[in-house]
């Protein structure tokens, strides 16, 4: 009962705060994007190369770029009020459909990558802290530093070279075997096979972050009095580590993972590019290049929703991990 009321209060607060936040994000994004030099007509005319002034004027009229700035903004907001993200002239389809096509695969890929990162990162960090100063810790520290500093595209390419080119175990890119017409479990397995390499390349960077963070937090918590008490009570070392140390050490990791989760819809342009993965990151990036701002605004808007949702979830998670934290 009490829990439910608390939950309701959190949700109400989130909704009340989300509306002005989202409105601010839309207006700010819109204005920032308009500052970019050149518009969609410039890019399109540039790409076909033999445009005339008439065709450019026609393009601008079609895209609504000939209207004053304020009117363009109002038109966009008007669309949003009707739950429409507008139309992408570049792709010739509604933005919501375009994003909808890519949303599931992006969520799956990024979700898997973050899950791997959190699990492996925490395990790695705890191991490092438990063996602090010894060679296991040293080796793992060097490895995580390596993951952290090596650029994602390079790791991605090297994984492709090893597992696709040399060993031939995994596909080199894409999100499914095209035209294989797989169904049911075969299709799921096929998708998973295509996700292993990109998810791993994405995860390695976060593994390093979470590993380092967990190590530091665990070391700090391990020196607390109540940990000594727990050990003195005769609890098994593993129980002490998991129940007394790790639970308290998780707060910074979950905070950071929450921030990363919020950015999930932004995708990972580099990894998506290297693995030819049709994700939202690439869609957003290509929209910037093509000045296809309806699409970009749509992606940014969804991302901001996700950030708000992720923050709320993390608040709730914190309250559960550490009951002393009051959810305001």
């Amino acid at each position, binding site marked *: 009962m009490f829990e439910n009321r608390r939950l309701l209060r959190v949700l109400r607060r989130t909704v009340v705060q989300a509306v002005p936040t989202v409105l601010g994000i839309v207006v700010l994004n819109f204005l920032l994007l308009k500052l970019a030099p050149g518009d969609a007509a410039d890019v399109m005319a540039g790409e076909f190369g033999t445009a005339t002034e008439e065709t450019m004027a026609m393009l601008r009229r079609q895209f609504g770029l000939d209207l004053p700035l304020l009117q363009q903004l109002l038109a966009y907001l008007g669309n949003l009020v009707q739950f429409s993200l507008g139309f992408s002239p570049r792709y010739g389809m509604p933005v919501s459909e375009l994003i909808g096509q890519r949303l599931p695969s992006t969520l799956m890929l990024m979700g898997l990558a973050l899950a791997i990162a959190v699990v492996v990162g925490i395990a790695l960090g705890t191991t490092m802290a438990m063996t602090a100063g010894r060679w296991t810790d040293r080796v793992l520290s060097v490895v995580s530093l390596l993951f952290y500093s090596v650029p994602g595209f390079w790791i991605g*390419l090297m994984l492709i070279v090893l597992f696709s080119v040399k060993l031939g175990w995994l596909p080199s*890119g894409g999100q499914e075997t095209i035209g294989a017409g797989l169904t049911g479990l075969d299709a799921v397995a096929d998708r998973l096979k295509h996700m292993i390499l990109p998810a791993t390349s994405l995860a390695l960077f976060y593994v390093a972050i979470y590993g380092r963070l967990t190590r530091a937090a665990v070391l700090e918590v391990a020196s607390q009095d109540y940990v000594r008490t727990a050990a003195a009570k005769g609890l098994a070392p593993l129980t002490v580590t998991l129940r007394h140390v790790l639970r308290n050490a998780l707060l910074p990791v979950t905070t950071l993972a929450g921030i990363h989760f919020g950015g999930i819809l932004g995708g990972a342009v580099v990894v998506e590019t290297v693995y030819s993965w049709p994700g939202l990151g690439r869609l957003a990036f290509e929209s910037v290049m093509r000045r296809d701002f309806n699409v970009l605004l749509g992606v940014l808007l969804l991302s901001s929703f996700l950030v708000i949702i992720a923050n709320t979830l993390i608040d709730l998670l914190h309250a559960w991990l550490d009951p002393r934290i009051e959810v305001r």
Partner: protein
Amino acid sequence: MIVLSKPSPYLMVALGPSESPIVPKHLYDGVDVAAPPGPPLHIGTGPFILKEWVRGSHAVLERNPNYWDKPKPYLDRVIIRFMPDAAARAAAFEAGDLDLGGSAPVPLSDLARYKDHPKLAVDTRSFAYTGAQHQIFFNLDTPVLKNKKVREAIAHSLDLDAIVETVFYGQAKVSPSPVSVALTPWYDPAVQARKFDPALANKLLDEAGQPRGANGMRFPVRLLINPFIDGRLAEFVRQSLRRVGIDATTQNLEFGAYVKNVYTDRSFDLTIESLTNVFDPTVGVQRGYWSKNFRIGLPFSNSANYSNPEVDRLLEAAAIEIDPAKRKTMFSQFQRIVHEDIPSVDLISPLEIIIANKRIRNYAPGAEGLGANFADVHFVD
């Protein structure tokens, strides 16, 4: 039936399928092209039917059983994959996931590795339908560049053979005339590149009243490059210019910003452009040199703001001349005048690079390269 107000000598060539696909009259008749576009229609007369198109990932084309030219097409299915990263494409080729790729499918630095590949062949050619051409346009509104000696000096400061060998790994041809060497019917071989001669360039710049200052530099210029061209070309040109005392600064802009900078703001002094000649000089070359096509805000127009009445006259006459011999003479004259006036320094024509499975035949049967319709493509054992 097309009724023309004037003869149009290039029209026949323009009717190739990659440039002018056949579209269904019953769907397009009476459609207002200026209206906001609806969902795209992909209905044509080609050998394949679009089965599936996942944007950003792939398109699947299935054999058209009703194709007019039986028993073609030979392939049951063509899968087109969209892979934005050249290194990833190289890996996919090596993993055996790809059979065919065009437009420099792998990084140029990787090409050598494919020479002795057991399954893949590298095919480098020029295709007359593309007329690839890279050139430097001068902004003739920049005071210092109004002096022809300065432009001549810049032309003498560039080693075109070295550009071909270093920047393009040998996968280009020196193309010194405004009409690309790839357009064999129209290129005039009498137009030759100015000799690479830094000493002469220095002398010309001194004569032009641009002595070296205290820091060894004569004057600054802003050098831009079309982002679809390998950025190392800008680096090469920048260093060549600095060697003769021209303080060039490069700016790497993405495409939208580049187009705006050059064609709307005109905030550049030199730009390395890729004014492709397409299949005919009237279509592809005229836009860059015709004074009536100096249009602020129009991409790939006359960026130099070059104006020569005789050039205008030749271009306009050649556009409606149906006698190929006379037309060739006009374009030759045009090329010689432009070469003399130096509104641009024409550099090279990059070769089309195709990587293909050794078992594939007829993937590029004509001048369109991979742009042809694939009806003849087949595998052999």
